[in-house]
């Protein structure tokens, strides 16, 4: 048995060495293909490939380094963390330059300058010219971006209501539907937004200026420096210009940026767009009120959703236990449909899918989505609990002259409720945490607010601890109350 073991070890070492060699010959670059054109998107002609200006910049960097580019998919909001972990060598995905990023990661020189653009419906072009005209109005953007920071400032200054999205498509479709009154995003996205959604227009006023950069792990600073040289060279010899012209992104701002960078003005650019960065602790303290607000939203949403789930679950369970065969079949089908499909999908369908028929406000859609989903699970608990009450007691109730309804209310229901209490408590705690999914339909609850805070300060440690503590504060008393009630019934 010794020889095969040794052979296996040698084989593993060889494979490992080969993999390490392959890593060095590749430039692994991270991006979010969901971001779409012109950044990164799956090639419509060959879905295994990606296309976009970021893809071409990655090729440019890889060829300068003498490596082959390899794309690594990563969610947009987790690009920083993935870069820091070393999931890829460089992140390129319309990533904005910011002091927070510079403090946590090794950041390349900017390779593109963009303006933040306010998009409105054509009919509103005359009255919503800038953020100052949008007091009390909902303005959409992507979370954890320069645009979001600008909106937060405008919230304090003008009373604008920021609405954060997880993607850059739905802000514009919701603007068309009237769910929001404006969208603030960078000009690349804004141009795409009005091209895809007739009836929208971009306001000419500049709201802010930002830059796209590449990000690498701090330990990769030498690699970053080599990439900076390659980028400067590509700016000088027109290869970057060619890329941006191919993607119709070239404008007069870029030569000015390149000229400043050629003069060695990288530091000045990095400092330009954002104010002085507060310390992690200061930032966390500054975010505390919004975290408390988000926790309140989580709690209210969870309580209302659970109430809906309990009421609907009881109705479904009663229908399945007492209803005629057709009703039972229908309800069983409904429960299986809801349990068999992801909550995330249900939320998308409710909020975005049904938008052409009924435009549910985000909070209401979240409440209905969570309520309907959990009602399916609750109904199974109640059905099981109802069926667990001994049939003999139901016979006894019948011989005493109770109607079916009286038997349910006086005999079966109370006992079933006691059996269902523990799994119900469990479900409520699960719902409390699942409520974080509703951030995909623009409801900023505790987890979303935490991820915004984490992106802002570039670390998950303090936000993560705060967020976990708040969830525990919300869920522990509930579990305790349920245990006390169970104990009281056991006597």
């Amino acid at each position, binding site marked *: 048995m010794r020889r095969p073991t040794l052979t296996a070890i040698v084989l593993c070492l060889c494979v490992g060495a080969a993999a390490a060699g392959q890593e060095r010959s590749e430039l692994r670059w991270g991006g979010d293909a969901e971001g779409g054109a012109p950044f990164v998107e799956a090639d419509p002609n060959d879905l295994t490939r990606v296309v976009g200006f970021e893809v071409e910049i990655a090729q440019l960097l890889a060829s300068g380094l003498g490596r082959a580019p390899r794309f690594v998919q990563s969610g947009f909001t987790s690009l920083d963390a993935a870069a820091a972990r070393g999931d890829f060598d460089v992140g390129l995905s319309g990533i904005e330059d910011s002091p927070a990023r510079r403090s946590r990661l090794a950041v390349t020189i900017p390779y593109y300058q963009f303006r933040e653009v306010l998009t409105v419906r054509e009919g509103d072009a005359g009255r919503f010219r800038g953020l100052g005209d949008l007091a009390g109005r909902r303005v959409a953007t992507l979370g954890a971006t320069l645009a979001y920071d600008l909106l937060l400032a405008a919230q304090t200054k003008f009373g604008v209501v920021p609405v954060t999205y997880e993607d850059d498509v739905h802000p514009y479709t919701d603007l068309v539907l009237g769910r929001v009154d404006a969208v603030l995003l960078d000009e690349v996205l804004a141009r795409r937004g009005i091209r895809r959604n007739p009836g929208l227009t971009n306001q000419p006023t500049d709201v802010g200026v930002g830059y796209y950069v590449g990000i690498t792990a701090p330990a990769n600073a030498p690699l970053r420096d080599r990439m900076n040289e390659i980028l400067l060279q590509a700016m000088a010899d027109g290869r970057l210009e060619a890329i941006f012209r191919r993607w119709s992104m070239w404008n007069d701002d870029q030569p000015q940026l390149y000229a400043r960078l050629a003069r060695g003005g990288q530091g000045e650019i990095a400092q330009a767009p954002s104010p002085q960065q507060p310390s992690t602790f200061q930032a966390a303290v500054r975010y505390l009120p919004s975290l408390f607000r988000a926790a309140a939203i989580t709690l209210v949403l969870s309580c209302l959703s659970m109430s809906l789930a309990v009421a609907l679950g009881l109705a479904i369970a009663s229908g399945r236990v007492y209803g005629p065969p057709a009703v039972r079949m229908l309800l069983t089908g409904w429960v299986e449909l809801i349990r068999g499909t992801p909550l995330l999908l249900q939320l998308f369908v409710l909020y975005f899918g049904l938008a052409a028929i009924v435009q549910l406000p985000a909070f209401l859609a979240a409440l209905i989505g969570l309520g309907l989903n959990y009602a399916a699970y609750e109904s199974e608990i109640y059905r099981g609990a109802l069926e667990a009450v*001994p049939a*003999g*007691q139901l*016979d*006894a*109730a*019948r*011989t*005493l*002259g*109770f109607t079916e309804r*009286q038997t349910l209310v*006086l*005999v079966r229901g*109370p*006992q079933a409720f*006691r059996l269902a209490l523990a799994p119900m408590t469990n479900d409520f705690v699960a719902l409390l945490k699942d409520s974080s999914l509703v951030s995909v339909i623009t409801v900023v609850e505790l987890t979303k607010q935490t991820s915004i805070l984490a992106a802002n300060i570039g670390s998950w440690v303090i936000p993560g601890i705060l967020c976990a503590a708040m969830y525990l504060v919300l869920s522990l008393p509930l579990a305790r109350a349920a245990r006390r009630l169970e104990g009281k*019934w056991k*006597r």
Partner: protein
Amino acid sequence: MEAVRCDGTTVRGCEGAKVNNATSILDVSALTIVRGARTLADDVSFSATRGEVVVLRGPSGAGKTTVLRAIAGLDPIAAGRITVDGVAIGPGRTPRARALRELHRRVGMVFQFHHLFEHLTAFENVWLAPVHVLRQPRAEAERRAHELLEQLGIGARARALPRELSGGEAQRVAIARALAVGPQVLLMDEPTASLDTERRDSLAGTLRQLAAGGCTLVLASHDEEFIRACSHRVILMQAGRVVGPS
């Protein structure tokens, strides 16, 4: 001797029985019960008068419980007729709600395993039906429940939950619960199954008192000694059929 009437009130001696003992209250005629391919009761006929204690005797599987459940309106019957104090139920999937309601006013049942409502105390088990089915005022129902439990010798256990009661105590609570709605016929399935000898004798005494109060009792049992102690008449069953008085 003091006797307990079916409605829970107390009478002296056998006064209740003397008044009513000639009247037929229960009539089971050609009763046939079928489950799938099996015939559980086949052409069963018997009757009982007021204050009479009739025992269905026979081995396990003879169809005794099946007949009791049919009289209580719990299971559908395939053929025949059951008449209790003028209320008749016949074949059909389930008897009509109104007929059932009338039947349940007249017939009470004490199950072999008692089937007390486990979330309620002994006391609550007894007053629940009078309040919600008979619409009696709560105070009155509670007073009568209290009386019944006292008469059956378990007044001290009124606040206990079913799982805290012994087999004999649970059975007496089940009897009190059935009597609280004032049935004319009380059905009891294997009443001695969970009792020791002493408790069995005590139960026989209680049943005699009930019968003396005018209550008709139909029991399913195969306990010879108990049958001798309390029955007026025994009907022998075997394989779903009446094979004669023993």
